[in-house]
């Protein structure tokens, strides 16, 4: 299989790894093509050989047999150190060099490649900025002076330092709390949209796989591919029992992570700007069929919900700080993120920003409900289709109970 029109970046050909004294090979006869510019996720139960497979790509583990191609070049026998300088590498434990500053850490590969000072310094600052940190503040710090999340970011920056077009990431967001992980995942996706690297990403968390992957390889014992497909196809059409089990319950809820706010039709909401006088605001509210108005500031950034109660109690024009803080999402947020925001803020409506941070519309909980219902219908149809295939002679609908 090749990418969606893209070409193959990494090709694994009958890769096998048998560790000394092991009865079953850790990886057995794995063949796979990884398309350029995509995030391919290896996911599977612990010990199934994900890490081993990944480390064979940069030859941290030498395959027992089989071949690895990078850009159609057989790198199975290439100089491993040269090869590794072309491939970014991030591990779960991050492995920043504790005795070196952040700048020195990031400069590792450029130094090995013999870049000049000026170029290295510029690149270091660029990268620290790219991962959302302030170069002036952080470049001379040591790893121990960073938080876990910041270290993780620097680990990613370091892997990108020489602008490799392939990155290997082994559970890069594994060791951090769920909230920070979520943020790092989102930032990384935004970054990837710009840099379009070919990324092999190992995780054992199917939710992370669905969120991050352009393509997911679900692996079983011995790195056998159970299914290698897009997240959508895997969720909608799991290849077998193992895959279905691995995806687990609540597959339709998981599908909420597949749809993004930008993909659905946004609703409208009546808005007021700060400075609007009370009478006009009250009129706006009665004219609309909603229970509140959305307060925007002069730049169009949503500031708060103005309710009828507020308008009744107020004595002067609407001020910038008025109202209750809204749940806010960006167009890149998934429906699952959106639902989360709503539940956290206890509103049934989330305000959507455009790319410049201005108000662009709202998502209501009903919209999300509908999305879930649509997915459930699709799933039922899939089950029904399968049942029909299983018993092709049955004329009647065998699954749908009489209503």
């Amino acid at each position, binding site marked *: 299989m090749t990418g969606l029109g893209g070409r193959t970046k990494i090709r694994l050909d009958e890769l096998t790894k048998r560790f000394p004294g092991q009865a079953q090979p850790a990886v057995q006869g794995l063949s796979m093509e990884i398309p350029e510019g995509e995030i391919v996720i290896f996911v599977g139960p612990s010990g199934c050989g994900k890490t081993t497979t990944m480390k064979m790509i*940069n030859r*941290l583990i030498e395959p027992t047999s089989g071949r690895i191609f990078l850009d159609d070049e057989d790198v199975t026998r290439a100089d*491993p*150190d*040269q*090869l*590794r*300088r072309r491939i970014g*590498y991030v*591990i779960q*434990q*991050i*492995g*920043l*060099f*504790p*005795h*070196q*500053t952040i700048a020195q850490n990031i400069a*590792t*590969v450029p130094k*090995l490649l013999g870049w000049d000072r000026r170029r290295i310094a510029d690149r270091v600052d660029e990268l620290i900025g790219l991962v959302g940190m302030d170069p002036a503040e952080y470049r001379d710090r*040591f*790893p*121990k002076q960073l938080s876990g999340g910041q270290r993780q970011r620097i*680990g990613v920056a*370091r*892997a990108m330092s020489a602008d490799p077009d392939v990155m*290997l990431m082994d559970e890069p967001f594994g060791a951090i709390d769920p909230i920070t992980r979520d943020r790092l995942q989102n930032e990384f996706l935004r970054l990837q949209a710009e840099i379009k690297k070919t990324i092999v990403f190992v995780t054992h968390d199917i939710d992370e796989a669905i969120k991050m992957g352009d393509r997911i390889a679900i692996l079983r014992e011995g790195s056998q591919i159970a299914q290698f497909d897009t997240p959508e196809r895997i969720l909608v059409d799991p290849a077998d029992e193992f895959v279905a089990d691995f995806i687990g319950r609540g597959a339709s809820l998981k599908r909420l992570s597949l749809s993004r706010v930008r993909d659905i039709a946004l609703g409208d909401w009546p808005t007021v700007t700060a400075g609007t006088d009370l009478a006009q605001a009250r009129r706006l509210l009665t004219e609309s069929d909603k229970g509140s108005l959305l307060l925007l500031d002069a730049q169009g950034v949503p500031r708060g919900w103005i309710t009828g109660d507020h308008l009744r109690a107020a004595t002067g024009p609407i001020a910038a700080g008025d109202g209750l803080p809204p749940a806010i999402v960006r167009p890149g947020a998934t429906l699952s993120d959106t639902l989360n925001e709503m539940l956290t803020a206890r509103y049934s409506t989330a305000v959507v920003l455009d790319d410049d941070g201005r108000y662009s519309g709202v998502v209501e909980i009903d919209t999300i409900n509908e999305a879930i219902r649509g997915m459930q219908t699709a799933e039922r149809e899939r089950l029904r289709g399968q049942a029909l295939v299983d018993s092709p002679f049955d004329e009647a609908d065998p699954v749908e109970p009489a209503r």
Partner: protein
Amino acid sequence: MNFVDYLGNRWDNLLELGVEHALVTALAVAIATVIGVGLGLLTYDRPRLRQLVIATCSVFLTIPSLALFGLFISWLGLGTTPVVTALVMYSLLPIVANTIVGLRGVDPAVVESAQGMGMSRVQRLFRIELPLAWPVILTGMRVSTLLALGIVAIGAYILGPGLGNDIFAGLSRISSPNALNLVLGGTLGVIVLAILFDLLFVLLNRLTTSRGVR
């Protein structure tokens, strides 16, 4: 003569012996560091060799120093050479052991990420592993230095240099009026040297280990 008067009279002699004492110690520890760190580097990731080296160095340390000096007389004669040789042997264990412990204590994830970025074996060793193990190695050198300072004093028995000469001189004519002063002066000198070396190591540690690992 009381001890203070004694010091007033003899301080130039004490200073001379003290400088000798310090130089011999420093020389021996320097040699032991080169050999010890080298042995540590060669063996830290080879369990068999590692055990062999540690066991051998431990045996050195258990030989009583007087006996070792005696054994050296026929081979190396008297004076500085046999003393330095013996000191090197005694100083090895703390340095080798700490080098091995230090190198083995480096976080495997750090080494793996260095390797994963394409650092060669030698680059990894000198840019990552040794700098990270360095504080531990330095501690080994410090222990060796203190150990050596005491043993140098015994080296005067085979006409080695240093403050031991005063101590042995005092001990050999214990009934003479100055005997106690001689012993006391020499011993005090060793203690002062120990304190000075300790300060030196504190300074060295500040200057040579990264703020990131302190």
